[in-house]
């Protein structure tokens, strides 16, 4: 996968041409690059076949919002799978946590502190997080300390939490939700707008540059070989271009006409032609989650241990890792991520229902697996899982735009899942 650095005098002959030299010098993960390529082909294909509907600011903005919930959970699922476990309960857990959060903000808090209490959303989120973490810890404890396989425990969880979600309000839908809480759902008029989006973009660009410089300084301190300057510049330029391009697209999508009219009337101003939406709040949350989870999995002891356990559980234990404690923490993390996704989806629906998240566990697992997570353990990346979620959502969205019936959509998505994993298996067999 990642090429050996210049530490070894490069043994491969320099016949690979410019592309291969670029890949080696930049140490790019070729697998991830392949996925980006596949996604590009998918997008262009859908754009052509939907008569130019796919690659529009509107569709891409919607795609980003729809992807965020599954992407957030996939970043946790990838760690679960890397550690040789599985979590089938995320969809049901989402419904249960969603129902509890709905009840808290609609029925409980208004009675205690009245409607429009400014901290309703904070209290709701904190209770939701605590509940998600507690249930994750409970399942993780059974898996790690009692030694019952994760498949069984979370299969039980899939039934239990779905039933519990019904029980919370006897199957009733809870609506409407707190107006501040609804911001996390991601409507155009609650997105962060053009200026803030550019600020986020600027911060991201600074982050990319600092990351590259920091890496060089650290390697120079120990006299390790450095990547060639031109490779660093290419990498940085690609990263910055992607950030600016993404934000540019988000900013070129304007509020729908109806919302603009409402806004103008409410503020008593002439109706503007265009109000840029900018980055949607759930997308912003997903980006933060992505950064945090990437950091956790690659830069911390916890992440290192998750991968070591997945590679060889016995060796990890002999190496002095508290493997059971780490396993429990993985499921706690998963529970918290499920809560974040549950907040986004209930806020988006403006309702909590006991059917929320039905079949989501399968989409989340599929995203992680398409993104390169291996059930054999020890292999998987957070960016891969997010790309996997994007591939799944792109397929669905593209087929809707093409007017393909739902049953056929399922057939296509199922086939793509198997095909993607098949190709990946072939690729690994070759590169080993």
């Amino acid at each position, binding site marked *: 996968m*990642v090429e*050996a*650095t210049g*530490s*070894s005098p490069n043994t491969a002959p320099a016949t690979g041409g410019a592309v291969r030299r670029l890949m080696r010098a930049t140490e790019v993960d070729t697998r991830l690059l392949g996925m980006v390529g596949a996604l590009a082909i998918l997008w262009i294909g859908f754009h052509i076949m939907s008569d130019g509907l796919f690659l529009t600011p509107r569709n891409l903005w919607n795609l980003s919002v729809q992807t965020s919930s599954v992407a957030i959970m996939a970043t946790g699922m990838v760690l679960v799978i890397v550690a040789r476990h599985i979590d089938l309960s995320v969809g049901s857990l989402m419904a249960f946590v969603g129902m509890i959060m709905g009840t808290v903000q609609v029925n409980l808090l208004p009675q205690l502190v009245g409607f429009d209490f400014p901290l309703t959303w904070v209290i709701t989120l904190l209770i939701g997080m605590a509940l998600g973490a507690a249930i994750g810890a409970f399942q993780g404890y059974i898996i790690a300390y009692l030694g019952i396989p994760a498949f069984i425990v979370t299969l039980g969880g899939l039934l239990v939490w779905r039933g519990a979600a019904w029980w919370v309000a006897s199957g009733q839908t809870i609506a409407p939700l707190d107006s501040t809480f609804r911001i996390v759902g991601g409507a155009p008029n609650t997105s962060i707008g053009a200026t803030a989006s550019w600020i986020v973009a600027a911060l991201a660009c600074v982050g990319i540059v600092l990351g590259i410089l920091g890496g060089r300084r*650290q*390697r120079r*301190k*120990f006299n*390790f070989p450095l990547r060639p300057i031109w490779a660093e510049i290419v990498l940085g330029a690609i990263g910055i271009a992607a950030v600016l391009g993404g934000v540019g697209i988000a900013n070129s999508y304007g509020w729908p006409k109806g919302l603009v009219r409402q806004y103008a009337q409410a503020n008593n101003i002439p109706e503007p032609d265009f109000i840029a939406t900018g980055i949607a709040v759930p997308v912003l949350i997903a980006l933060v989650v992505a950064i945090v989870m990437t*950091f956790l999995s*690659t*830069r*911390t*002891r916890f992440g*290192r*241990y998750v*991968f*070591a356990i*997945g*590679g*060889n559980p*016995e*060796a*990890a*234990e*002999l*190496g*002095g*890792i*508290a493997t059971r404690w780490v396993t429990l923490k993985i499921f706690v993390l998963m529970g918290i991520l499920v809560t974040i996704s549950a907040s986004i989806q209930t806020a988006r629906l403006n309702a909590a229902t006991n059917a929320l998240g039905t079949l989501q566990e399968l989409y989340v697992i599929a995203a992680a697996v398409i993104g390169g997570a291996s059930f054999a*353990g*020890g*292999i998987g990346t957070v960016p891969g899982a997010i790309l996997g979620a994007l591939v799944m959502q792109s397929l669905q969205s593209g087929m809707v735009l093409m007017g393909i019936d739902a049953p056929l959509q399922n057939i296509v998505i199922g086939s793509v899942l198997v095909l993607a994993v098949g190709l990946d298996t072939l690729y690994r067999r070759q590169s*080993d």
Partner: protein
Amino acid sequence: MADQQSPLVEMRNISVAFGGVHAVEDVTINLFPGEVVGLVGGNGAGKSTLMKVLSGAYSRDAGKILIDGKEVTIENPRDAKALGIETIYQTLALADNVDAAANVFLGRELLTRWNTLDDVAMEAAARQVIGRLNPSFKNFKTPVHSLSGGQRQAVAIGRAIHFNARVLIMDEPTAALGPAETAQVTDLVKKLSDEGIGIFLISHELRDVFDLSDRISVMKNSRLVGTVFKKDVDEDDVLGMIIGGKHPGVPEALTSGAALATEAAATA
């Protein structure tokens, strides 16, 4: 020579059973600083199980472990490592999907001041310790599953010696190695014991055991046949102990510190 010198390690009356099967029964052995004790016996004699009790991988059903004369609790590998007991397992026990440096520091990662992994510093240290064992080792960025048997062994040994071990358990350390690498390991064992590290060496190669050990403990059918000074026996005597469970009738070498000190003085 301090005649009150106490053993670095004492394992007293250790028993381990898996279900109804007794893997180790009432075995007592000890180890002094700077000493190499060869632990030999047929397959399934219980050598590895006994050592895994010391390294924290298995829990014992009876008996006690003393370090420096004080009883200690070893319930998991972390406890053993905290006491300075390092182990090179027969299976090497490497995390196959991470690189050499990550394996050397597995469970004891170096951190930056922001509590993040200091991969560069770990790589630098790993280069040093592995380079000592295998100067031609270059693949510091590849997962260890793609390394050769000798390179993997170097990683496992590097992990055991990097943290200033006091006790080193080597379970068949040369099984996967060619002649040149075996010689390197042999040199290393001598050097480490000169530095005062106590070494338990499990090996099927009687020649290695005779070459390196000060004393030899023989196990058969989960029990200790006896412990002998190397200078008192030849390979045939030890083979007789391994195969026939027959003590050669030389002085028992499972000694107190005082007797060993006298012994050392006599041979010096």
